[in-house]
Structures are given as structure tokens and as C-alpha cells.
């Protein structure tokens, strides 16, 4: 050992050996930079694609299932409160809702495969419950049409299945996939620290090599090292700009999703309130009216949290005012003169004055508009992040490979001079 140390020092002290060490160092760091850059950008591409292609669509479909099923629940009950002529379009709307939910589940099933979480299980559970629910409603209608009270038991059970079985699973699917989208966007826009550190180290090694070459050979510029420095800088700056842009788009997407969340929840609650109105008339339970009253408060809170759209708040206020006779018992009016059953039916079924929709549907339409608007922006930002990242992993690897070759060439020329 004591022998090899001075020998080693002696080797490095020689100029050509010093250049050789720089060549090896630059090659190792350049390779490391290229590999970490490729890995970092490839992973970000995957996360961006995951957010744009799978999660975003799953989120949308979960939302579609939720709305369609809550809507179907309301229509299934409203349809037994009116005569056959008026029941026909309501039953058709129920069937349209079920078809929409089935279609959404079909897409969700394809998108949930390989997500690595519980999405596929949740979609399977929803697909299992949907036909059960539809059968219960259809039997309930048949029995009710025949004037048999058991029909109400079927409809009550169907409604309970939606509220305790289907909607919670759809809500969980939507919440988890929204979180996954946000997580994927954050990952896609995360600073690639290992790549940056390796890149800066490579640049430092290149500068040191250039200074060493200048000092020992009196040649000011080594073209190979200059080119390598340029290529490394381009790789570093390019990656920083791209990731920075993706991060910016991710933030836009997250902001939009943060608005979509409460709006979607408000719309879901609106559909549930629509169903609760009919349930209170058909098979009331203690606390139902207070629950409905609470739903209106919650909707207001959610819409306000999502920016307080004036049109939505006005539609909600109109609906709440219209439902006053139904809500009276929950506001200390349990002993007030109750409206007649048929008046209450008209309150919840008849369209708003001068409109084809009910007050509840008006709010639903406005919230749907807002949700689609914000969702489109979120999808756009996720898509553009994905497009921006495309092929940058390979580009960084190629740039760094070229930088290593260029540095090796530049130093190689100087090293060869000592052996000729």
C-alpha cells in the first residue's frame, strides 16, 4: 500500500492522465445525467398520461354514474305520484338515466383496468348493483300500477339501494380518482432534483476540464468540451422549462378540479334532494324533512365555496322558497296547518312557472354547465401537460449522449498528443 499511493499520485500528476480522469468523470456524470433525466422525464410522462388518459376519464365517468343514478332515483319515485300520461316521460327519463349510467360504467370498466388501485373493484360493484336496482324499480312500478302497496316497498328498497349502495361507491370512486389525478399532476410537475444535481455536476466537471486544458496546453478553447457544455446546458434548461410548464398546467388543472369537486357535490346533493322530496311523500321517515332542509344549506355552502356563481345561487334560492310548504315541519312548523298531499305533489313535480323544468332541474342544469366548463379546462391542462412532455425523455438522453461523445472527442484529441 505505501508503494501504490505515491505511484498513483504520480500518475494523476501527469497531464495526459489528468485529462483522462476528466474524460472518465465527464463521461460518468454525463451518463448519469442522461439516465436520471431520461428516467425522471419518462416517469413524468407516464404520470401525465395516467392523469390525462385514465384518471381524468374515470373521474368523469364516476361523476356521470353518480348524477345519473341520483337522477334515476328521483324519477323512479316521481313516476308513481302522477297519472299514466305524465308518468310515461318520467319513466323514460329514468331509463335514460340508467342507460347513461350503464354506458359510463362500460367506459369506466375499460379505464379502471391496471390503475393499481381499487377502481376496478368499485366499478364491478356498481355494475353488479345497477341491474338489481333497475329490477326493483320496474317491479315497484308494476305493483304500484296495480294499486298494490307492496310496490312502495320495492321502490323504497330500490331508493335505499341507490342511497346506501350505489351512490357511496360512485362518490368514493370519484373522490379517489380526483385525488389520483391531482397526485399524478403533481408528480408530472415535480422538480427532477437528481437530474439537476447530476447535470450541474456535469457542467462543473466540463468547466474544470476546460480550465485544465487551457492551463496545461495554452489552448483557450476546446471545441469538444464547449459543445458538450452547450449540449448539457440545453438538456438541463430544456428539461427545467418543460417540467416548469407541466407544473404550471398541473396547478391550473388542480385549481379547476378544486372547483369541480364542490360543484359536483352540490349537484349530487341537488339530485338527492329531488329524490328526498318524493320520498317524504311516499314513504316518509322521521328526520327526512330536516335532512332535506340541511341539503339545501349544504348546497349553498358548496356553491359558495366553488366561487358562488350567482345564477346557481339564485336557482337554489328559488327552489328552497318553492319547497317552503314541504320544509315547514323542519322549521318549527310541525304543528302548522299541513298542505294537502296533492298540493305537495304539485310542488315537487310541476315545472317552474314559464319553464319546462322543475326548480330542482334548473339548478341541476346550471351546475352541470359550470362543472363542464371547469372540467374542460382541467382536461385541457392535463392534456397539454402530457403533450408537452412527449419525447423529452429520449431527447435528454440523446443530448447527454452527444455531450459525452463530444467531451470524449475534445479531451481525446489532447490526450493523443502526448502519445504521438
Amino acid at each position, binding site marked *: 500500500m505505501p508503494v501504490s499511493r505515491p505511484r498513483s499520485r504520480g500518475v494523476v500528476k501527469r497531464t495526459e492522465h489528468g485529462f483522462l480522469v476528466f474524460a472518465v468523470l465527464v463521461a460518468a456524470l454525463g451518463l448519469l445525467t442522461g439516465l*436520471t433525466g431520461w428516467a425522471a422525464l419518462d416517469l413524468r410522462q407516464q404520470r401525465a398520461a395516467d392523469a390525462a388518459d385514465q384518471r381524468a376519464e374515470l373521474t368523469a365517468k364516476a361523476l356521470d354514474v353518480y348524477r345519473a343514478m341520483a337522477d334515476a332515483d328521483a324519477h323512479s319515485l316521481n313516476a308513481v305520484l302522477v297519472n299514466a300520461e305524465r308518468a310515461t316521460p318520467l319513466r323514460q327519463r329514468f331509463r335514460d338515466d340508467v342507460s347513461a349510467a350503464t354506458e359510463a360504467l362500460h367506459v369506466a370498466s375499460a379505464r379502471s383496468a391496471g390503475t393499481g388501485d381499487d377502481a376496478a373493484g368499485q366499478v364491478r360493484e356498481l355494475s353488479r*348493483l345497477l341491474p338489481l*336496482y333497475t329490477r326493483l324499480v320496474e317491479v315497484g312500478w308494476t305493483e304500484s300500477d296495480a294499486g298494490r302497496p*307492496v310496490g312502495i316497498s320495492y321502490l323504497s328498497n330500490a331508493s335505499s339501494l341507490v342511497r346506501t349502495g350505489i351512490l357511496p361507491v360512485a362518490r368514493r370512486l370519484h373522490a379517489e380518482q380526483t385525488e389520483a389525478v391531482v397526485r399524478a399532476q403533481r408528480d408530472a410537475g415535480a422538480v427532477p*432534483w437528481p437530474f439537476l444535481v447530476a447535470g450541474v455536476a456535469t457542467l462543473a466537471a466540463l468547466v474544470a476540464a476546460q480550465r485544465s486544458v487551457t492551463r496545461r496546453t495554452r489552448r483557450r478553447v476546446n471545441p469538444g468540451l464547449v459543445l458538450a457544455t452547450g449540449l448539457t446546458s440545453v438538456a438541463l434548461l430544456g428539461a427545467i422549462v418543460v417540467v416548469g410548464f407541466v407544473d404550471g398546467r398541473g396547478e391550473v388543472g388542480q385549481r379547476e378540479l378544486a372547483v369541480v369537486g364542490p360543484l359536483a357535490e352540490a349537484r349530487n346533493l341537488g339530485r338527492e334532494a329531488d329524490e328526498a322530496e318524493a320520498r317524504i311523500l311516499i314513504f316518509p321517515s322521521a328526520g*327526512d324533512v330536516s335532512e332535506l332542509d340541511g341539503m339545501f344549506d349544504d348546497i349553498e355552502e358548496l356553491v359558495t365555496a366553488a366561487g358562488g356563481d350567482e345564477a346557481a345561487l339564485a336557482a337554489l334560492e328559488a327552489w328552497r322558497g318553492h319547497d317552503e310548504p314541504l320544509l315547514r315541519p323542519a322549521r318549527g312548523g310541525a304543528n302548522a296547518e299541513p298542505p294537502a298531499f296533492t298540493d305537495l305533489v304539485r310542488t315537487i313535480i310541476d315545472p317552474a312557472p314559464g319553464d319546462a323544468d322543475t326548480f330542482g332541474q334548473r339548478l341541476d342544469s346550471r351546475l352541470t354547465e359550470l362543472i363542464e366548463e371547469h372540467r374542460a379546462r382541467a382536461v385541457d391542462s392535463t392534456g397539454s401537460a402530457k403533450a408537452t412532455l412527449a419525447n423529452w425523455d429520449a431527447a435528454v438522453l440523446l443530448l447527454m449522449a452527444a455531450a459525452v461523445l463530444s467531451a470524449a472527442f475534445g479531451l481525446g484529441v489532447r490526450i493523443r498528443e502526448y502519445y504521438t
Partner: protein
Amino acid sequence: MIKVLALVAALACLTACAAPAAPAGPAAAPASPSSAHPDLPPGYDEAPERTAPCGNAPTDSLDPAAGPLGPDGRPDGPNVRRVREEGLRVGVSQTGQFRSKRDLITGELSGLEIDIAKRVAAALGVPDEDLSMIGLPTGGRLYSLDTGANRAAKAVDERLGDVPGVDLVIAGVSVTACRVETHGLRFSRPYMQTHSGLLVRAGLSGVTRPEDLAGRKVCSGAGTTNSDEMIDVRDRQRAERRPELVPVAVNDTSDCLMLMQRGFVDAVYSDVLILHGYRHQDPGTVLLDYRSPLTTKAAVAVSGEQDDLLRFANDVLDDMRADGSLDLAYDTWFQGLARHHRLPVPDDPYRR
């Protein structure tokens, strides 16, 4: 050189440690909802417990003449006068075939109990438009009466706050001491009595009584004497090491027919008037000849703080017994009920 190697090693470590988080692994939460059968009605229970025994609160009623009478000879008092002025509110069931059923399209109610409500209103001089018949919520129907016990319960449980207030409850309420104790109400003289029976699917052979239903599921309303009886049968079978029936309890007895039609239960054990309504709705069922030894009586429930109204209800029921209209209503609504399942309309206990 060592420094260079250390830098490379540090960079390698950074690469490993600072990589973006991988996609989330499998979620801990299960895919399925908490209930294994979300398609079953809320409260469905295959292991119900016997209800706690009640005290011995008196369930006797009031003699119509045991208080002030009005110029028309009817019981009188502040509540009677209030109802005459403001209208009568009666809490009813909406799904009791033959007892009290609502046509959801027209809103019309019909059945034996509706006949009684209309008769009380007529005796009070309350016009039809001032007679409100209100469908009472499951789990809260007796909280609709204005009593001290109910007011205290509503103060504690806000869910009960929206139960509409009524003057009378005529909704197949069985006379029990528990209800008197819990709600501070009083019962009128009974207008109907019945016993429990057994409804099964047609074609189920070898079954004549609950004990024959070993290994099968029998549905009853949760917390009812019927459910308790089935629990007792199962416990006896268990003690004798014989195959047991499975008592099933549901929040709303009317769910039992649906559960039998869907094949979740094999039989329904309830009062025969309810079962008669079920059999009428589903001809594929059979009401067996079996009848329980116990009888239950249904009466009008009135606030324990409104004796004048209770006496008035009794007076009207007495009239209906006396002029035969109660018998006639019973025969009209329950025609087709097998004779051995018919129990006479309870007599006025004060005339015995």
C-alpha cells in the same frame, strides 16, 4: 478520486431517494359497500334481539261520560273546541291494504281506519276540507302526539323535530303498556282485534305452524311482539337441540311481503289482517290456518294530556259499535278473510 466517487455515490443516492412518488398502491378500503346486501331493506336483521320488557302502565281508556259534556251531549273540553275551530288532524298509515291506503295519484285514502277518522271528524262537525289525514313517518308516528314525553324526546333527538303534529293517530297502533310509558299517550277503546298468523308461499308443504319452519327464515316487524314470538320459538328449538327457524326483523313490516316475493324469507309472521292484505296483493301466497294464542287490539292513540279528545273518540267508537257501522266497515274491508281468523270487534269494556 475518492471525492469524485463520493459525489457519484451521492448523486446515485439522490436519484433513488428523490424520484417522484409512484402511483398509489391498492387502496385499503374494500370495493363493496359496508353491507354485504345493499339490496336488502334498511334494518334487515337475521339476528334480532327480544324487546326489553315494559312496566305495567295501565292501558285502560276513559269513559266518554267521565267529564264535561257539550250541548250536543258529546264530550267537551278545550281540545275538542280547538279541533272544532281549527280542524282535525289525524295521523294515518299510507300502505295498509284495507286498513289505510293512499292512492298516490289522486291522494285519496281508503280503508277501515279512514272510515273511523271521517266519522270522528263528522261528529266534531269538522268539514272535509278541515280534516287533514297525514301520512306518518316510519319510526316516528307516535311522536306526532303532543305529550310531555314526546316533547322531551324531540328536544333530545332533532330527527323527531319534523314529525308532523296530529290530534289522533289511527294507524294500526296496537295497545301496549310500553307505548303508554314511552310516549305518554292514552288509547281509546279498541276498534279492532286480531291475532297473529303465518303467510307462506303457495306449495310450501308440511308447514302448519311456526315450529315447522326449521331452517327457514321468518319475517316480522322489528321490535314487535310478533318478532319476539319468533325469537322465543327459535330459542325453544335451540334448547331442545332441534333445527331452528331463523327470525328476520325489518324496520317496516310491509317489507316482509317484498322479501318473500324476492326469496329472501320463506314466511311472514304478523297479524292476520296485515297478512290478509298481503295475500290479496300476492295470490301466490297462502295464509295458513294457524293462529297465535295471543290477541292484539288496535286503538286510536291520543295525547295523554287531551282527555276530552280521548273521551270524544271513545264516544264516536261507541256509536259505531252501537249502530253496527264498525262491524259493517270491518266486514266490508276484510271480506274474504277466513272466518276462523276473524275476531269480533272488541266490545265496550264499560258495558260489561
